[in-house]
């Protein structure tokens, strides 16, 4: 603990605090109350996009990983192709393909345009959520493939020999150990996913980045909204790191 109070750290901390105070005092912050509602809404939209896309993405990533690690070739090959395509193309391109590509095909069919689903399909967020989820699934499918393969086969063989049903084996032995092994990786990937969310602003989803852009455009100021935006993303990243640290510590593990 003594390490924190070493002189060079104190100096660095003082410089950091000084910068924050300088920003708070000498920059223009009077616009915050005016935009508070929109910013809160923007942060909320960023959070639910992130949480839902990670949840959906992870749900897809487990079968994708399993298919590649242990599936027959006719499951492994498409799963591998999906992960390769998603990981090999820019997310912005995927978002635009879904929104300006797929999304503009729908209205050509009158039965879609007149259906009850159209009020949802004409909005932008379903495409944003779909693109973010597929992207996360692509990256995590690859991570899960490695994770499933890294569980010692002896354990699975032993379980089989004891007559453990296949699904119970997967649920109680294979999956928990695979996830446990890649939790630190998943934490980092989730932070990356958070940092990918501003891309959806390009298809009219007004999340926190777009709110900051609005402030920049309307008040013609540059640093203040961007610095605030950086602080918001740092705070979100901090929360993600804490959640994953808690998850990692929750499962007791034997260390070699």
């Amino acid at each position, binding site marked *: 603990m003594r390490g924190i109070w070493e002189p060079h750290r104190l100096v660095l901390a003082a410089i950091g605090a000084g910068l924050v105070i300088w920003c708070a005092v000498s920059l223009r912050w009077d616009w915050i109350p005016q935009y508070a509602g929109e910013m809160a809404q923007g942060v909320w939209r960023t959070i639910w996009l992130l949480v839902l896309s990670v949840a959906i993405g992870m749900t897809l990533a487990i079968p994708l990983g399993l298919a590649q690690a242990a599936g027959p070739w006719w499951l492994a090959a498409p799963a591998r192709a999906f992960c390769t395509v998603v990981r090999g193309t820019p997310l912005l391109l995927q978002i635009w393909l879904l929104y300006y590509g797929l*999304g*503009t095909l729908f209205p050509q069919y009158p039965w879609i345009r007149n259906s009850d689903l159209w009020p949802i399909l*004409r909005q*932008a967020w379903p495409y944003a959520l779909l693109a973010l989820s597929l992207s996360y699934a692509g990256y995590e499918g690859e991570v899960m493939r490695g994770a499933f393969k890294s569980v010692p086969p002896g354990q699975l063989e032993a379980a089989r020999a004891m007559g453990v049903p296949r699904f119970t084996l997967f649920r109680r032995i294979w999956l928990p150990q695979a996830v446990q092994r890649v939790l630190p990786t998943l934490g980092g990937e989730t932070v990356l996913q958070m940092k990918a969310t501003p891309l959806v602003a390009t298809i009219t989803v007004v999340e926190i980045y777009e709110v900051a852009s609005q402030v920049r455009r309307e008040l013609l100021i540059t640093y203040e909204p961007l610095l605030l935006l950086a602080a918001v993303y740092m705070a979100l990243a901090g929360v993600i790191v804490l959640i994953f640290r808690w998850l990692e510590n929750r499962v007791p593990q034997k260390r070699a």
Partner: protein
Amino acid sequence: MKMKSLVLVATLLAAPVAAQEVKVGIAAEPYPPFASPDASGNWVGWEVEIIGAVCTAAELNCVVTPVGWDGIIPSLVSGQIDAIMASMTITEERMQTIDFSNKYYNTPTVVVGAKGVDMAPTAEGLAGKIIGVQVSTIHEAYVNKHFAATAAEVKTYQTQDEANQDLVAGRIDAIQADSIALDAFLASEAGAACCEMKGVVADDREVLGQGVGVGLRKGEEELKAKFNAGIDKIRADGTYDTITAKYFASSIYGD
């Protein structure tokens, strides 16, 4: 060594003054038929030709510099460019930050919507509709002031093209923009198939402004006088009308 760098600094400081080089900022987003890059990347269009003509008439050495639209005013204020000629309307709000020359064109503002859908360019006529506009434009300000209360939603786009595309896709019900920009859209294949002119919106000088002028930094009276003289000169000698005739059926100078 020190001496050399001092000389270099002096040359760098002196050079722009001597050559009277004026960096004219245009929006990097295509805005046909005013300014858009052609197949080889050169900027062409009515406004690009007008920039050339005004600068020649005002004896300025202009360099056309594309700048992202949403950062164009900060670029002017910070000195990365010296003038804005990007179809920027003269408004009270912008006048607080920058200065403007006299107008060089002024066109009516119109609403375009899907064919067969009943709507009018009024608050009641657009009730419950989703309206798309380009961000940071007078049209965004106008829609927010007059239509936002009754409309279902106002969506903002980085470029007019994206708003047009979403109207074609049926994601929005109407778009509002300059009549010339929307005439060009309605003349296109996709625009002609889906949409029609719904009418001219009621004038609001406070928001819609007093026409399009050259944006300049405050206090640069000499440059402003040169641009005004340049505009007057091409208006008087027919250059303005010659260029206009190449792009439009009628005059776009306005009243």
